[in-house]
């Protein structure tokens, strides 16, 4: 297994290199001058030019790319232009917020998505199935920022149940305040994933329920709950676990929008600010770290396969 993990990690190196070049080029292709973002709209042209010179933005793009790679080679992800802080420390500072949001969202997504999928499959073609699929369709169709704003209006303004924005750190404010600040954005973030996961689970479950071994189990008198939970559900898990990796990636990606709507100071918001200000090192470094995180998530998913299905071997 260890050899397999090492092989996957080594395969990830060229992927990350290509990804890094793409991120670098895309950022530098964007119109908009970071020196102007730093200097402010009223700075003189000369002052803006001085900042461009200081930041090295006047140099050829290839020189800038090679310099970035030379820094990456020694583990230096650069310094944010706007924050005057190393990219890694900026990410690490905001990591607890994004991780908290993603994990709470995942905790909501997994049982809800799988349960809805199983229920829809078991009562296929009934009104229950139709209702679940409508809910799932709404979940994947409604834009998160819109649902977020409506949710704030209803749950925060009208009912006053949750704070409308902001993050309460777990270590400073305690569990209740932490959960209260996260539950609303986490549910909004989970809506898309629940719909997605429910549809995948339903489809996988339907395939399994039509298999001979299920018919055999029923024929030999195994009770319906055992048939469903022990025989059908376990065989549904392979596609579900595959989707799980994607779901976690999407949750982290989706946090970009949700953190902005709920003013959560996480990595998603950091990236948005970085892009808006053309903070090249910040966006490039953060995206690269994200890329690495996705590689690791996919390796973990591969490992989980082996636990779910003993026929699968890793390495």
């Amino acid at each position, binding site marked *: 297994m260890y050899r397999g993990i090492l092989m996957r990690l080594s395969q990830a190196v060229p992927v990350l290199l290509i990804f890094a070049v793409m991120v670098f080029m895309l950022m530098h292709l964007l119109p*908009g001058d970071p020196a102007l973002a730093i200097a*402010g709209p009223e700075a003189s042209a000369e002052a803006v030019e001085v900042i461009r010179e200081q930041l090295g933005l006047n140099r050829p793009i290839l020189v800038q790319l090679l310099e970035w790679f030379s820094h990456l080679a020694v583990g230096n992800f650069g310094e944010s232009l706007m924050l005057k802080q190393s990219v890694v420390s900026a990410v690490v500072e*905001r990591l607890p917020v994004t991780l908290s949001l993603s994990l709470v969202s995942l905790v909501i997504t997994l049982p809800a998505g799988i349960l809805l999928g199983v229920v829809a499959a078991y009562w296929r073609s009934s009104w229950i199935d139709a209702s679940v699929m409508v809910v799932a369709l709404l979940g994947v169709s409604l834009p998160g920022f819109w649902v977020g704003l409506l949710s704030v*209006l209803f749950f925060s303004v009208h009912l*006053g149940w949750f704070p409308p924005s902001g993050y309460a750190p777990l270590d400073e404010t305690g569990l209740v305040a932490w959960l209260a600040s996260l539950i609303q954005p986490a549910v909004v973030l989970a809506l898309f994933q629940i719909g997605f996961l429910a549809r995948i689970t339903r489809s996988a479950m339907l395939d399994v329920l039509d298999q001979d071994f299920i018919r055999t189990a029923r024929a030999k008198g195994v009770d319906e709950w055992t048939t469903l939970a022990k025989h059908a559900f376990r065989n549904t898990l392979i596609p579900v676990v595959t989707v799980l990796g994607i779901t976690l990636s999407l949750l982290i990606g989706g946090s970009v929008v949700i953190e902005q709507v709920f003013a959560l100071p996480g990595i998603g918001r950091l990236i948005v600010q970085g892009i808006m200000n053309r903070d090249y090192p910040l966006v490039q470094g953060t995206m690269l770290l994200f890329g690495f995180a996705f590689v690791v998530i996919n390796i973990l998913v591969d490992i989980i396969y082996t636990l779910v299905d003993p026929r699968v071997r890793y390495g």
Partner: protein
Amino acid sequence: MAGWLERAGLTVALAAMLAQPALGAAGGKAGDPARGGAITYAAAGGPGALDPHVAGSLVALEVIHHVFETLVAMDESYNARPMLAATVQVGDAARRFRFTLRPGLRFSTGATLTSADVLASFERYARVSTNVALLEDVVGYDVPDARTFVVRLASSNAMFLDMLKSPTYPLAIVPADQQERPGREVDVVGTGPFMLESWDKDSHLVLRRNPDYVADRSAAGPDGLAGRKTAYLDTVRYDFVAEPAARLAALQGGTADAVANLPPDFASRLGGRDDLATLRVFPYCQLLFVTHAGNGLTAQRLIRQAIQAAVNVDDIIAASGQPARRNASLVYPGSPYHTGDGAEAFYDRRNLDEARALLRQAGYKGEKLILQTNATYSYMRDAILVLAGQLREAGMNTEVQVVDWLTNLTSLRRGTGNWNVTSAGFCTQPLMGPQQWRAQIYADPHIRDLAGLDDAYRRLLASPEFAPRQAAWRRIETLVLGEAYFIKVADLGAVRAYNTRLHGMAPYFFQRFWNTWVN
């Protein structure tokens, strides 16, 4: 004229235009101001740095003006007024400025402020500031004693004090030990009524009342960014909430006591809540169209003037949805430089026949005219969409490009991108007046080379009397508007909101929390 300016054979134009606001001008029955209490303000964003010498963003400046102070600051009417200086003597035909500091001034660390700190701050500013042009004419400084600081200029500059009052890139006085600090890396230590307690970038910051604050007891009360400021609140927490809807929800939900600018239609959602009120700030910014004199069609004066002739201001104001007033000038009515009579000729022409005639004269054959705007500021986008319709009606073939704010700003300031007209909001320039417009006007190389502009600006800065300076500004406005480099649309206001438990909230360009209190 305020008594602080000791004339030295020279009149410095610092006219007081409006009466000073009373304490607690808004907020209902205020009761007596009392110390104590903590409030939360939902700001539109968070600062990247809190270095006054390089601060150009409004979100940073709102915080900075609570913590730092300048020798001269703008008052309630946006004129220059001393803050850390007790008096200013202007001599040698506006080439020598002698500042005498108020006695007993202290930084929030408790250290005494002396002229050595002032000297260090000026020298740091000249080294790191993005507004270094402010001091480009300085030939030297003198520090005769601990309370006196003298600036010597190479040439007469009757507007030097007006330039010093600028709230953007403020020449704030920082401790002398900060002199060698690079830009954006200064310690947040000032002489203002509040001090920085904590700052969680991207999330919030907290200001605490500065116990060592030395108020200007010569003033009757607060006056713009100057005057006698009193911090009643223990703490002010700035939450950084970019989404206007989330800011409004924070106010409605009770997690914020005051919120930064909201779209005007949001104010209607506060109806029926006695505990919430709006604060209308007017004027706030000016909406203009800027033509790209270095690109294609709009390089032709006749085409630019045809665009100007087609503009119907009332339709644009109606579409923008902003509180707005008609004004032809690049400064606000009430300013001594307001020259509505000269600028009127180029304003709200709504003459489609003239526009068509100018197009014919220019040999226009239906080439595409690119109108660029941004999605960040909806009023700019809406204005350009209406303009596109008006230009089409005049026979022009228009295309609208919507980009993000920084792209739009870069296009405007660097003259990059393929565009002909863009919408722009200018905020501090019309407030501060002619000297503040200079950087923007000179940013465009095509305007910079305009015949007569240099001479007019020279007269504006060097003339010791006000009348020739006013005439010089009228000339500048006529040149810039007459050539249709700038097409003035309207003066705009801003809408903020607050909980009425907060008293002393008064409309001003920057949101201030000194002289505000909670019962």
